[in-house]
């Protein structure tokens, strides 16, 4: 992947919504196990 595209991914606010939900999901999993 070219750097401008990776940089565009990281600057895309829509990218951080699923990342935040994934982290929250991992925390719930860690809590219930």
């Amino acid at each position, binding site marked *: *992947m*070219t750097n*401008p*595209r*990776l940089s*565009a*991914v990281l600057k*895309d606010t*829509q*990218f951080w*919504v*699923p*990342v935040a*939900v*994934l982290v*929250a*999901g*991992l925390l*719930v*999993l860690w*809590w*219930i*196990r």
Partner: protein
Amino acid sequence: MDPLDAGRLRRLQLAGIASGFTAGAWLGAAEAPTKMVTLGLSPVVISLAMVVGVFLARWSLPALLRGTSAIRADVRQAPHLIVWAVLAGCLWAVANTLTVYAIRDIGLSIAFPLWNANSLLGILWGAVFFNELRGAAWTRLLGVLGGAAVMFAGATLLAVASSTQAPAGHAARGVAAALAAGALWGTMYIPYRKAYLSGMNPLAFVTFFTVGELGMMLSLALGGSGGLSGLVTQLSAARDVLFWLMLGGFVWVLGDLFQQYAAKYVGISRGIPLSNTNQLWGLAWGLLVFGELRGHAAATYGQVIGGSLLMALGAVAIALASATGAEHIRWQEAAERERARYGIDPAYVRAALAGEGTGGPSRQRTWLDWTLVVGATAVFVAFGFIARVPNLALSWGWVVPLTLAMLVLLFGTGWLLWRTTRFN
């Protein structure tokens, strides 16, 4: 971007809606093999075995349907989507593991509608991020929102009806797990929609999706089993049922492929509720084939029938509220935003939104495609040979018509998709 011809848009919407219903049938049936598993297996092992089946299916089916050369061509157009696909795979793996815990703690019948609330989240993300339902007439808006609400009410009624079978467990933990799974699955559609607005073919997307899925699942399994030796010991102890779990994963992939096409052609606000009719199919398998709820009071059956009717009614309302030209123009605006942000070829994005190819490489299969197909089949056959047939009372008289109905949907919708989009 020029507006899409009204006739073409109608045909694409029809293909998307049929894909949503077919996804429901196959995603619901994916639960059937997992019911054959002897209880007592670790949730992580169950989820990992399913993901292995998913992985094999997701590398072999796209190779068979489209060929790896077409997938490579897709990735060259929008390589950044690999990051999104891997992220979506990670979300799926964590959600699937959470559902196994939820089923263990509060039972499938309560957990299912809770995580199916993902459709409400899908509508929210679709409207906020991808212009879905913008520019839609109020009747269509009402059809989608009202349909989703009615489906949710039906799902809850089904949960109440079968709650008598819920295992005694840790209710709070189970509810938290099911709701978290719904949040993860509802959010997973952000990468799906992103990919399809940008032009990626669903068959290419799922190939990379599954890398994130298997990677995340292996990490969870290794962490939860005390390392590699612990995991191998657990898998070895479960070897005679691994086939059924992998089969569940395989059936799930067939449903998910249609779900991807639904997300592409009718958007996530309509695609997710339609594929959530999987609860009806899961219930049909449970009631008719596995004899669940047998001997319960007539009121319970009344709730089951009422809940099922509500779900079906909601799904029909959503199916009838498909996107029109005005809304599709707003989708095109969202696609143009993606194209500009990531520097994608405009012709590629336009062709994908219209369900057309871009004149890429021919669909001839290579030795790599056949190696993937034969290899995946061989692994399934090998696990099939060492599988133990569980001692379950099944109503075979119902297995045949349900399977036939699924096959009719599979080939009927597959044909419609091929005729309308050539699987683009």
